[in-house]
């Protein structure tokens, strides 16, 4: 069995699955249940400054979107940071850490954007023996209105400044949690690095309105007839998160900075994908909130089996393995030609590939008598839409045309690698000649 033990910026955990700072990590009772279920680490729900704690709404905090069979695909929330007294949290963190020495315990922090506030909170958490801090520069709702959370995360200079304070006043490893509610994720990551962050974690939630009540004409979740934007998470955000992780992993300025991957991790496969794109570990929230803490057991067995199949003895062999293959569009091989192929044995004759192609794409699928669907190679641009809409996995596959063969669509012979930078249609390529 592969070794799942994880060492993330010096923080050790028996596996790379941490619970993200969120409702499931707000209290000792939850965190202990998570550890009992097998979670390798926990980022404690964000603590605020000393003083009266924040308050939450007393109406619904979550909105959701669902797929078939009401499978939860996306969740948004308008919950704020912990609304329990700071002392209670600190006491519980201390107790839990003492009892669970082998598990990671990180404290998430969000205090006003001034040096004194940060200095003060860092001092207060010192004797909890927590393994590190995560700076919550991400939450896009509520706290952002008070100049915290994503309001900080959207200004690289603030990120750098606060990170510097944290490194100055604390010996703890520091993870900076990034908000995706920006145009270029590399900028805040660079700022964190400049500030001395040991790692970044991403993504925090995405600003969102999940639904509108069509009787009351108000966004959901609705509080007494009004709603506000909340932070979106869950399986639906995974593609956005994967890209942002990859952008940081492959950017020259940020390459090598440890990344804790967050965003819709639901299964071992999701986790492995984040790790392949450069995440040293992953953080999970929605999957646990949907199914309970036991989901980690599938993640552990799945990742372990996968690593065994691949012959990876340690997670470090997986981390970043796909990063070199993330490139810019301009470098994609334009001489790589594939054609869709429909397996008649697997086809259940639903016709979805046909109508998708016929109505919305390239009219490259023929519907024959007896509902036999075949690809017209002379029309197929290999867009993959048919593969995506087919309900049967692997029924439609993209088959590569060997070099030297003539693509019946273009009449051109499949040649060696060539990309847009040298393509005759590229005006810049021509200018360079």
């Amino acid at each position, binding site marked *: 069995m592969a070794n799942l033990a994880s060492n993330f910026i010096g923080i050790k955990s028996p596996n790379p699955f941490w619970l993200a700072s969120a409702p499931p990590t707000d209290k000792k009772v939850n965190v202990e249940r998570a550890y009992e279920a097998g979670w390798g680490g926990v980022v404690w729900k964000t603590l605020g400054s000393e003083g009266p704690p924040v308050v939450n709404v007393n109406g619904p905090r979550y909105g959701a979107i669902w797929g*078939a*069979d009401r499978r939860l695909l996306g969740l948004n929330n308008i919950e704020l940071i912990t609304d329990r007294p700071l002392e209670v949290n600190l006491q519980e963190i201390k107790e839990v850490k003492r009892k669970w020495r082998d598990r990671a315990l990180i404290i998430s922090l969000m205090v006003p954007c001034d040096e004194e506030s940060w200095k003060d909170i860092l001092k207060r958490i010192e004797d909890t023996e927590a393994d590190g801090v995560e700076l919550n520069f991400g939450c896009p709702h509520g706290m952002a209105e008070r100049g915290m959370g994503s309001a900080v995360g959207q200004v690289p200079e603030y990120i750098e400044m606060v990170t510097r304070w944290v490194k100055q006043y604390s010996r703890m490893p520091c993870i900076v949690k990034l908000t995706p509610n920006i145009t270029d994720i590399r900028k805040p990551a660079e700022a964190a690095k400049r500030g001395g962050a040991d790692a970044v974690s991403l993504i925090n939630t995405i600003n969102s309105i999940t639904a509108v009540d069509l009787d009351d004409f108000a966004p959901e979740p609705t509080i007494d007839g009004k709603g506000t934007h909340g932070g979106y998470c869950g399986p639906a955000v995974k593609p956005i998160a994967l890209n942002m992780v990859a952008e940081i992993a492959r950017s020259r300025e940020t390459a090598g900075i440890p990344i804790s991957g967050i965003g819709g991790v639901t299964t071992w496969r999701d986790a492995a994908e984040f790790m392949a794109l450069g995440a040293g570990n992953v953080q999970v929230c929605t999957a646990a909130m949907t199914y309970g803490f036991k989901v980690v057991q599938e993640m552990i067995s799945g990742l372990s089996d996968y690593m065994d199949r691949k012959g990876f003895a340690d997670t470090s062999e997986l981390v970043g393995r796909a990063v070199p293959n993330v490139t810019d569009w301009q470098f994609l091989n334009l001489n790589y030609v594939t054609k869709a192929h429909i397996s008649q044995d697997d086809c259940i004759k639903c016709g979805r590939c046909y109508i998708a192609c016929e109505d919305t794409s390239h009219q490259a699928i023929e519907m024959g008598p007896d509902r036999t669907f075949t690809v017209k190679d002379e029309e197929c641009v290999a867009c993959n839409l048919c593969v995506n809409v087919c309900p049967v996995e692997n029924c439609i596959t993209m088959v590569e045309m060997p070099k030297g063969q003539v693509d019946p669509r273009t009449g051109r012979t499949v040649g060696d690698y060539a990309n847009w930078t040298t393509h005759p249609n590229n005006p810049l390529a021509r200018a360079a000649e």
Partner: protein
Amino acid sequence: MSNSQLTPGIVPARLPAASYEANFADHEPPLDRHEARVAADRCYFCHDAPCMTACPTSIDIPLFIRQIATGTPEAAAKTILSQNIMGGMCARVCPTETLCEEVCVREVAEGKPVEIGRLQRYATDTLMARDVHPFTRAAATGKRVAVVGAGPSGLACAHRLAMKGHEVTVFERRPKAGGLNEYGIATYKSTNDFAAREVDWLLKIGGITVKTGVTLGKDVALADLMNDYDAVFLGIGLAGVNALRAAGEDLPGVENAVDFIAGLRQAGDRSTVAVGRDVVVIGGGMTAVDAAVQSKLLGAENVTIVYRRGREKMSASGHEQEHATQTGVRIIYGAAPVKVTGGARAEAVEFAYTEDGPAGLRLMDQGFTLKADQVFKAIGQTLAGVPDSLSVTGGKLPRHPGPKLWCGGDCAEGGEDLTVTAVAEGRDAAEEIHAALTGAAG
């Protein structure tokens, strides 16, 4: 002295009173809202969907299921009813396992089709529970059409004609409208008087007058209808029953299965319906299954269906046959009745095994005898009461025998003798009549 399953002869009240309600409860209970959403989620929204092609009324099944999935069952019902005004009954009685659900791509993929029939019922029940009629009539055309027979084809025809603005009079020989929906469907498939409620709901379109107790050729002549109306539709069904052609057929205790089924449907109190201790049903169609299953549900001790050919030739579907055997009915394939024996009344039936060869069915020397105090004949219905002026081919009337006259449903050529086919033929005849009366194309 109360009766029991072991009481000899044909007697009522074989079971404790409480058993009847349970035995004749909804055969397939309706889906609730949650179940319907889950079931609807399984539909792939196929292109040119095979289910739709398999439906004799061409209901846009993927569309109505999507409408259920998006929380608009009333819109789903309208999609169904615009093609099949008896979509409610068809949802209950269609042999979906040999129609839409047989060709569902998920049947191909997983051996488990989308539950189209039950979803259709969910949609139509939801709409009908609101007691509104979703269609309105076009401006009056001033044309008058006579429809003979208030069964599925006649009512479907009448509804479509009324919708087009014509004035329709329906003549029905029985005391109630509905045809086989009212008199021929197994009780557990159409509970809570659904057939009658559906007729009432259908007639809400307006412009339809139903005259019951009027028999063609007796109370009203086809020639007169042809003179008095702008067009005539005959949906007279199959009023006759095939004879057994076996000795002893006339003995008391030998009955038509259709009469038994109708009697049970019309009985307010099922415990008053008499049934034998040993019941033998001869035939291989849905009527045979319905008679046999309901005999069992009424408390008969032994019920046997005997069909002269093999299992694969039986017109009752595999699903129906399974339902029968699960209820405790025994099915014997490949045997034909030779003689009903008995003194004052039927006591047993002698059968000979058959051999189905290229030359047809041949009786073999070997056979068996089944005890029978009640024998049901379910070997098919025949056209009866056809006006002399009409020619009959292969036991059926032409769909359009001449000017101003159309036929549809079980009495007419084309399709299987199913409720859904009858509805399609009635509807299509109405479209042809409308085109003929208004000069409209199509």
